[in-house]
């Protein structure tokens, strides 16, 4: 983890007594769990149980009704703002790429926005076999190709905490194996993964049930 690009070392994520509601409806309450470096956790629960909202609350994009999200760095507790702006990257249903621009421009922007170096971006693109697609507009890419682009951005930026919302959904079997490899490598390097899933993650992961069991 080179600090030079502003990335922030995160050793642990603590969620304590979290409760989130959408409008008047309470999604879940009193949820607590922790994820340590090298660990993965997967959120299971029915559709609309609040898995995505939980990810967004951890990312600081959504304000919970009650409860707390805390991050620990190597040397003890971290300020949530710095931890998030330096150490968290999210992969949501929409990958955040502008359809009208080329894959190269959007991948480069997004990865470097999260602290990747130019070399890391080209290496990640090569690894995900994206080079032939780079000069195409994002609009013409398939959902699977766009998801690989987002995975390349994750690999290039290499931020410690990955928040993944059904990461493997649009990928075919071959690409899922590659994603598993990437996730395992991330965990061995001391990274953390918190993912909302319907089918289990391809790496060892603890189950966290959100809301009513599926």
């Amino acid at each position, binding site marked *: 983890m080179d600090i030079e690009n502003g990335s922030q070392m995160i050793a642990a994520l603590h969620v304590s007594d979290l409760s989130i509601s959408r409008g008047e409806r309470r999604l879940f309450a009193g949820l607590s769990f922790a994820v340590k470096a090298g660990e993965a956790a997967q959120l299971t629960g029915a559709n609309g149980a609040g898995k995505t909202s939980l990810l967004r609350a951890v990312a600081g994009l*959504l304000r919970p009704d009650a409860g707390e999200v805390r991050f620990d760095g190597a040397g003890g507790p971290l300020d949530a703002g710095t931890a998030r*702006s330096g150490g968290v*990257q999210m992969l949501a249903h929409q990958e*955040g*790429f502008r359809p009208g621009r080329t894959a190269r421009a959007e991948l480069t*922007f997004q990865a470097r*926005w999260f602290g990747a170096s130019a070399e890391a971006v080209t290496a990640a693109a090569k690894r995900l076999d994206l080079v032939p697609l780079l000069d195409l507009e994002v609009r013409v890419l398939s959902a699977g190709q766009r998801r690989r682009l987002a995975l390349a951005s994750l690999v290039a930026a290499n931020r410690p905490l990955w928040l993944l919302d059904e990461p493997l959904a649009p990928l075919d079997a071959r690409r899922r194996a590659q994603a598993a490899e990437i996730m395992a490598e991330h965990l061995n390097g001391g990274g953390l993964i918190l993912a909302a899933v319907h089918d289990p993650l391809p790496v060892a992961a603890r189950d966290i049930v959100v809301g009513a069991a599926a």
Partner: protein
Amino acid sequence: MSALLLLYRREVSLLWAGGGGPLLACGFALAVTAALPLAIGSEPVRLVPVAAGTTWIVLALASLLSLERLFERDHEDGALDLLALGPPTLEAVFAVKTAAQWTAVGLPLSLAAPVAALSLGLDPALAPLTAGAAALAGLAFAAVGALAAALSLGSKRGGLLVAVIALPLYAPPVIFGAGTVTAAQEGTSPGPALALLAAYALFACALTPFAGGAAIRNAQG
């Protein structure tokens, strides 16, 4: 290269290339200017007194053009969430977007402004002053307009809502901007008006990022 510079280059290339690029803004400005003589007649005695005023109305309306998409597209693509998670704060992201809006729409319009004013009979010697005042006013329009765009995130009638929110707040820059040129036309010094215009533009640039950041967080969470 710092993250903000990366974002600035992306935003400018987005605004400059497709959609509401400078060509569209200047085209709109000149089209509306051309409508005036068609509406009220070609005699200079009618046009010259309103040349400065019309130019500022045209500047204000033209600067509204690409505002609606300034945040809406990123919001729809899911990019706004990622921008919030990056190293810079949302306030900084907002300021960069305002700067991009000024660069891609405000500055080109400040070149179109003297052309529009001259076509309506403004004294050519006032062209540089008009361009300068238009650039300053453009900065105010960009900052307030960007805030209006951020506030109307999540509403269905985005474009119209941006105008209804922004235009009352455009009153001071329109008054001071047009006032600068009118003062010069009447031979008095444009200094005070220009100073007030600059003050409002800087005030808007200082205030709107905080309001804009809050508006974006509100639309996200």
